[in-house]
């Protein structure tokens, strides 16, 4: 009896591990090494040259890549349009900053706590709102994002509408402000690599196949035995973890967190634009789109001619992608050069 119980526990554990089945050979995939190379480039190029301007540029790109890649898990893989994805980032930032400022937690613990808290809340929330499909779900995510924003703006421990400011002494634990900025940058680049690998692992797993089945036809997926409520809640929750951690790091670097920045609905949509630009449901596409969009936006902001038109140009770009290139840049590349699929996923 006892033995039977133990073995069933093991089987159960193994059942969850099996979700990532199909990845025993992840090191043999060329794309894994592409991710490693990209991450190393992000670390080495500014690290060796010590170029702070370049670091600032790549910092934002890395943050965007994390946001777009995790959003891709939801929209690209599962087909559920999450318009409130910025709430993960913003709420994570708030939880982390609160722990750092008010409770004097070390940065790493605050990051971890932010990720866990946001993931947990998302899991609970997901079990409710993921019963909705299509446009209804999209609307619910807007509602959730706005509700969280409105709540934070009134919540006194989080500083209300004026936000929270961090004293620069907090940087001392990481060896002073200059050193701390480098540390935070390297950590975010590391997380960027982790989220890309995570996307790759999920894509090639049984779990990922289940998600794709949900995207293609949810009712058929149910009939075929995919546990859709769990799969959806799990991916919803997972897609919130890394953005929350990065949110803490982002606002830690800024030293200040404001509700208008943390829950900017425009950034939510921009993350979708990035993902669409590169190609939804592809790991490389989402990252490339985020990188390209960040460079493009940086160019528009500093250009004397175009800085006024930044929003207009981004809008026109989005309209053109949606109308003429719905599968994004990588979708177009795959169609023209099918062999690329062997290297990039």
């Amino acid at each position, binding site marked *: 009896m006892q033995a039977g119980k133990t073995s069933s526990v093991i089987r159960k554990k193994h059942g969850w591990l099996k979700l990532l089945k199909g990845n025993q050979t992840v090191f043999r995939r060329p794309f894994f090494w592409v991710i490693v190379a990209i991450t190393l480039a992000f670390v080495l190029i500014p690290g060796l040259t010590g170029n702070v301007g370049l670091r600032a540029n790549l910092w934002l790109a890395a943050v965007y890549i994390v946001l777009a890649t995790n959003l891709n898990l939801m*929209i690209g893989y599962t*087909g559920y*349009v999450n*318009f409130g994805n910025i709430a993960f980032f913003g709420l994570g930032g708030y939880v982390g900053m609160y722990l750092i400022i008010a409770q004097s937690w070390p940065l790493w613990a605050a990051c971890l706590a932010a990720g866990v808290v946001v993931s947990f809340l998302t899991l609970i929330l997901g079990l*409710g*709102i993921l*019963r*909705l499909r*299509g*446009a*209804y779900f*999209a*609307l*619910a995510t*807007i*509602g*959730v994002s*706005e*509700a969280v924003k*409105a*709540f934070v*703006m*009134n919540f006194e421990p989080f500083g209300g*509408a004026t936000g929270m400011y961090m004293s620069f002494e907090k940087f001392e634990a990481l060896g002073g402000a200059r050193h701390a900025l480098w540390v935070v940058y390297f950590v975010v680049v590391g997380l960027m690599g982790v989220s890309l690998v995570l996307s790759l692992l999920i894509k090639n797993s049984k779990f990922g196949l289940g998600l794709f089945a949900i995207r293609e036809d949810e009712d058929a997926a149910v009939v075929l035995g995919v546990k859709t409520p769990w799969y959806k809640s799990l991916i919803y929750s997972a897609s919130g973890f890394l953005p929350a951690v990065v949110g803490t790091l982002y606002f830690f670097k800024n030293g200040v967190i404001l509700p208008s920045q943390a829950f900017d*609905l425009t950034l939510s*949509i921009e993350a*979708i*634009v990035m993902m*669409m630009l590169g190609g939804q449901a592809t790991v490389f596409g989402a990252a490339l789109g985020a990188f390209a969009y960040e460079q493009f936006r940086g160019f528009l902001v500093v250009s004397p001619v175009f800085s*006024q*038109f*930044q*929003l*207009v*140009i*981004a*809008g*026109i770009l*989005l*309209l053109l992608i*949606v*109308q003429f290139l*719905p599968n994004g840049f990588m979708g177009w590349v795959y169609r023209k050069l099918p062999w690329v699929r062997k290297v990039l996923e």
Partner: protein
Amino acid sequence: MSYSLLVSLINGLLMGSVYGLAAIGLTLIFGVLSVINLMHGATIALGMFALYFLVTALGVNPYLAILPVFVGGCLAGFAVYWIAVHRVIDSSDLMSLLSTFAVNMIIIGVGTLVWSTSPYFVKVTLPDASLHGYTIPGTQIVAAALAVVIAVLLYLFLYYTRLGKAIRAVSNNRAAAELMGVPTHWILALTFGLGIAIAAVSGLLIATLFPFTILSGVSYELKSFVAVVLGGLGNPAGAMLGGLLLGLIEGGVAPFINVSWTPVIEFTLFVIILILFPSGLFRVGKGR
């Protein structure tokens, strides 16, 4: 105290009918095209600035301005349909959401260039009503009355004209309507224009009450979402009732809690209603 609550409720109800009108614009488009119109807020803002232009530059009576704004809104919506929506109408939700959001970005971008984000104000003076020392602005009463009139006119159009019948047919079953000889794409374009025009007019009515910026539309867009969900997506009569209910909630809680908490209540309610009653709270206009 009880009078302050009563006046607050009346104010809420009056605002609510304007919210309801805006929500009708949104829900009409969703009901017929199955598109969530994310340029709704930008359209409301454009309606506000159209009023400003017509009143300050051309000296038009603010309430007569409704007519040109309605026609202009219809034409603009018609154009946007053929440019941005037509190609994506049959693909996934994400595409139409992004398409209308792209138009939204373009409008907001151009609007910011032209008008910056500083506030504008259209001065409309009407005698105020008063109740036991509390005043209810006359502009608010007129705006609410006009919103209801426009909603009723829309109802009559949808239920008592041939074109309205065609719109309802397309909403019900597009393929069957096409088989019956309805030019569905023109009906879709017309409906989109109608939805945009109604949103613009509701923006105009709001602009007679409060100062506005090009970004003001966003908060009214979110309120429209709440009203639409309260009434059931795609149900115009429900949207009006949802707007009124939203106004009553705003008016009802205003005397008791800080006004900044209202959005927390609204959006929490929004999510809860969406999960528990996805087809809305009301059963009007849906038959049995």
